[in-house]
């Protein structure tokens, strides 16, 4: 008797998770997550920028220009993390066949591409006064550029099919192929730069004051919140696009 109860509990626990694989169940939850994350993103950005610009001291070697780090490093991290998340949902979608997983991948890609561009742009503007050049073919910079290419390829492929299901699965496969390649590309480029450049200039590595680290950490959480909110918004739009005929959606949108 006790045993069967245990079993049905396990089953129920499983169902709790699976329930949210259905767009109808996830749509309202995504809305709640989105709203919380917009608020968090705004608050954390305000706090982070205040600490970054009014509490953190001037850097001893770089002067004021180091303050770019508060957005540069979070953007670079997000570009990487979002790609991994995108590949994870793509793989989940291919294995389990859950259409919400594919939508999640599609929802993440544009934000990831934007983060890659922001990381490259701010890196260039930071690099010019610090190492005297806008662009260095350094492993991290080059990998971020290639990451951007992979995002663009993923989005272009997803849009190239009239049949959405086909586009889902095709782009998911490419996301996985890219995920396998990212580390290979990173180490190849790293090897290549040590080969060609006698003295490679590198950012960072100088000791940072605690308040600087705090500002960067808070901004990182702000970026997380922003990216989650943007992805959830896009996910809900996708659900609207794809389920436009269903009755539950008409109720939910009202």
């Amino acid at each position, binding site marked *: 008797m006790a045993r069967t109860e245990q079993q049905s509990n396990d089953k129920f626990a499983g169902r709790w998770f699976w329930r949210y694989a259905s767009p109808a169940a996830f749509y309202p939850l995504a809305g709640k997550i989105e709203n919380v994350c917009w608020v968090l993103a705004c608050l954390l950005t305000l706090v982070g920028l205040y600490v970054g610009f009014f509490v953190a001291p001037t850097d001893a070697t770089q*002067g*004021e*220009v180091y303050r770019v780090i508060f957005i540069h490093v979070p*953007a670079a991290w997000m570009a990487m993390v979002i790609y991994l998340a995108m590949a994870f949902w793509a793989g989940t979608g291919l294995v389990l066949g859950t259409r919400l997983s594919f939508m999640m991948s599609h929802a993440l890609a*544009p*934000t990831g591409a934007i983060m890659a561009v922001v990381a490259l742009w*701010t890196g260039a503007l930071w690099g010019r006064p610090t190492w005297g050049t806008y662009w260095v073919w350094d492993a991290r910079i080059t990998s971020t550029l290639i990451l951007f290419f992979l995002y663009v390829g993923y989005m272009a492929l997803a849009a190239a099919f009239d049949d959405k299901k086909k586009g889902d699965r095709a782009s998911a496969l490419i996301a996985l192929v890219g995920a396998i390649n990212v580390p290979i590309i990173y180490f190849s480029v790293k090897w290549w730069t040590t080969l060609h450049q006698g003295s490679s200039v590198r950012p960072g590595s100088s000791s940072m004051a605690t308040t600087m680290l705090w500002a960067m950490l808070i901004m990182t959480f702000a970026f997380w919140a922003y990216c989650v909110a943007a992805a959830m918004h896009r996910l809900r739009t996708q659900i609207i*696009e794809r389920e*436009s005929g269903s009755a539950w959606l008409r109720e939910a*949108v009202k």
Partner: protein
Amino acid sequence: MMWESWSAFWDMGGRGFFVWGSYGALLVAVVAELVSLRSTRKAALQSMQDTHDAL
């Protein structure tokens, strides 16, 4: 207050172009994304309405 004046704040120790160029680019990117999020949502809702009206 660690800045002597607002002009010192905007000047960023002579590196204003690089600092504000970075933050400005982020702002542009975020605003562009928000606008596109809003417009695609609007279009999706509109087309849903249209298909419903057509029925």
